[in-house]
């Protein structure tokens, strides 16, 4: 993976349609090493669709997507060891315990069995899941399931994290915990993070760059240090809707 400040993720003129409906149009975006790039937008703006493209789960109809210079659709599996993700739903099998789910995620991240056990314990501790280690995932609250999904994404110390609304269902303590973990991964380890969120105040505390998405297009940016982000966000979205 590239050193800090080089683009890890790049989208150039990316477009995608569902049938005749455009869901992504002319997306140009990059995510740099050692930085957190946040994507904000209303429901249905296209954030999750864009993240799925980045992870090679579907292909773009126009333009190009690359992760560390490689096409995610054709990238050999071994290169995914640098990437952790949480998109759509946590990787949590209801019949398996928290620890079994983490061991499973560690094996999928490429850890041999012994390392997988150690990595699972470490992540359970980091996400404050140790007390539920032997609890089946079906008995977890939605917040703890989300923590489990985040732990599964962070396992293996990936250098790129793609997280779709990671703080959904988390209590304030969980939000702070995730923020601390992500900032540590970025500042101390040089990881690149691409994260979507609805929580503008949370994004402001976390992100180095904020892009606004509306109707499948990137319509502007927000300055994380600015005041009243909510107002700026809605002004941008409203202006875009008027233009359309």
């Amino acid at each position, binding site marked *: 993976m590239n050193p800090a400040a080089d683009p890890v993720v790049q989208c150039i003129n990316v477009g995608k349609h569902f049938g005749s409906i455009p869901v992504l149009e002319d997306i140009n975006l990059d995510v740099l090493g050692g930085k957190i790039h946040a994507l904000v937008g209303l429901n249905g703006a296209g954030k999750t669709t864009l993240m799925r493209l980045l992870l090679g789960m579907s*292909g773009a109809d126009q333009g190009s997507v690359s992760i560390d210079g490689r096409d995610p659709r054709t990238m050999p*599996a071994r290169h995914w060891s640098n990437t952790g993700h949480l998109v759509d739903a946590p990787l949590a099998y209801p*019949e*398996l315990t928290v620890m079994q789910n983490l061991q*499973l995620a560690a094996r*999928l991240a*490429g850890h041999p069995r012994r390392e997988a056990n150690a990595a699972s314990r470490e992540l359970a501790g980091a996400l404050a899941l140790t007390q539920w280690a032997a609890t089946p995932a079906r008995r977890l609250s939605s917040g703890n399931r989300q923590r489990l999904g985040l732990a599964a994404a962070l396992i293996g110390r990936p250098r790129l994290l793609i997280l779709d609304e990671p703080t959904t269902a988390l209590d304030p303590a969980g939000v702070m915990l995730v923020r601390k973990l992500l900032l540590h991964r970025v500042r101390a380890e040089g990881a690149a993070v691409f994260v979507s969120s609805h929580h503008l105040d949370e994004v402001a505390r976390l992100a180095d760059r904020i892009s606004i998405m509306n109707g499948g297009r990137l319509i502007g940016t927000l300055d994380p240090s600015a005041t009243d982000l909510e107002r700026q966000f809605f002004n941008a979205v409203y202006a875009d809707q008027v233009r359309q």
Partner: protein
Amino acid sequence: MSPWEQLRAALAVEWLKFRNSRPVWVSCIFLVLGVTGMSVLTLGAIAGSNPLLAAKAQAIAGPGGWAGLFAAANTIVSVGGLLGFGVVAGWSFGREFTDRTIAGLSARPVSRVAVAAAKLVILTVWPVFVAALLVPVLLAAGVLLGMGGINAVVLAMAGKAAVITVLSGLLALPCAWAAILGRGYLAAIGTIIAIVLAAQMAVMAGAGGWFPFSTPGLWAARMDAGVGPVMTVQLLLVLPLAALAAVLTLRSWQRLDLSR
């Protein structure tokens, strides 16, 4: 990771899920204890007071004894195995869509193809495991019911029951493909019901021998453990059909588009 390392990791992951899944153990209990219980009940019905039931039971289990016990078991497994193994095959792949874990299995150093291959390996070995449980339970039931000692003839019947069980498991593999196409295990359950119906219709139409889904059932209907050259070829057709189902499953799984 080399392809072999990926497969090893995927096998560990899939075996963990498989052995903790309730549908797997429910179908196992049904196929071992359920089939044995129903076979014994069929034998009991021959000597029962209901003449209609006795006639039906005799058509399945013939003269009774060891031959009758295994004939009944084979007949039940040839249909019940399709259903039981089909549900498990459909569950194994379909649950990833229903539980929304398919995205989490993607973009990993253990490729999605390795995961699908591991599932298929387990689904292929699973019927062998079930057969290895079913046969001793049937033999124990026969001994307990006073059918006499276990000789070479009885062991040949037991071997036939094991082969029919494994063939039923292989014939259920198309359900894995159906679960991917239908993005959930309900599609697989619909498929296995359609397969069972088609197998019955093929037998009634007189073409069952060359319709692989019907062949184990037709072999089961024969009282002896022998198999002629034509039926050997017919039974062997199950293997390319299972291989085709596995290839289609791998291909569809690899090409999945998860844009929504």
